[in-house]
């Protein structure tokens, strides 16, 4: 049932991406509307705004969550594409292993950056 669990996480990560990307699009591209509603202020891509968000724990957690969901969803999709090439069992394991290691490494590096920026007090 390993493949069933992987597939479930693939679907769940899609749902997470949908919600978090919705928030991202709202913050980045609906700035004026948010400003009119009294929620946001200033240019969202201004460096002070970017670092301001990154120093908030909620955003730091959100970034790590989006990174994890995006990496898992993308790499599982890539694995599926490789598997459709009708690989041998050993090559399948190799592809799965390489993608898993790459995913974990990228996740750790991305999370490290998010945590470091969160802990910074200005640049």
């Amino acid at each position: 049932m390993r493949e069933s669990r992987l597939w479930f996480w693939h679907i769940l990560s899609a749902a997470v991406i949908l919600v978090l990307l919705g928030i991202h699009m709202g913050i980045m591209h609906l700035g004026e509307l948010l400003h009119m509603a009294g929620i946001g202020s200033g240019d969202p891509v201004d460096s002070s705004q970017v670092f301001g968000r990154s120093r908030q724990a909620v955003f730091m957690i959100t970034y790590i969550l989006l990174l994890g969901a995006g990496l898992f969803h993308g790499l599982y999709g890539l694995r599926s594409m490789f598997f459709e090439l009708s690989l041998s069992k050993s090559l399948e394991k190799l592809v799965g292993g390489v993608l898993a290691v790459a995913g974990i490494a990228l996740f750790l590096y991305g999370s490290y950056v998010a945590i470091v920026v969160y802990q910074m007090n200005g640049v």
Partner: protein
Amino acid sequence: MNKSATQDPSIIKTVQFEVLRYNPEGNEAPRLQNYSVPVIRGMTVLDGLNWIKEHLDSSLSWRSSCRMGICGSCGMFINGLPRLACNNQIVHLHSDRVTVKPLPNYDIIRDLVPDLEGLFEKHRSVKPYLIRKDTEEQEKPTGEFFQSQQELLNYIQFAYCIKCGLCMSACPTVATSENYAGPQPLTAGWRYCADSRDEGLQERQEVLYSSYGVYRCHFAGACSQVCPKGVDPALAIQLLKKDAFLRSFGFGKKKKAGPVLPPVRDWTPGGKIPEAPAKTVPRKTE
């Protein structure tokens, strides 16, 4: 066209049959051959091929049997879609040109005859038969396995499969992934997993839920679109996914196979069966 055919008043029109010809032993590559076929009302594509074989070209090969959409032998790629040749009337194609090719995603044995061995091999891999723990009962049956009407409805739609292979030829994933089990075997797997008399999920899940099982389905839905029996293999695959999801997180129902019913003994007709009406016409021998 022969003389008698042109004079037949029942002929509606003449259509051009464009038929793929290929003999692996003699031809380097498949080629299309044209035949003019007079069409009468109700004439199917299979009738057209029979007419060609009888009047124009006796070397044309295809596979067919029942002529009524039951045996699943005459699956062909007709005017761009996998269909049963016996189940499609020429006039319903709304074209004066009928292109007939062997089913895609299969090797060609000759002309319109596809090699279905791969399909049957994958079909066998899902163990399409009842698997129960009471093997002794199966070998020496003492009664019937109980199944309610509702339990029958859970899978009966998927039991209508005639193994014609049209779904496999329409599936875009089968076309690109040789190892993918495909809609027909997966549907057959679900047909038995959903059967209340069966306990074989553990033995089947190795194939059904492998990396070449249900999770390779892109849900294009082409299998359900071309199925001549309304089996809906895409639905069966989605039900397999749902079942796997529930089971992998411990929400699935623990399935116990339907019990064996005690044999019926000393049965006599009840009093409610009405008498046959009196004879109105005497037999000739009387």
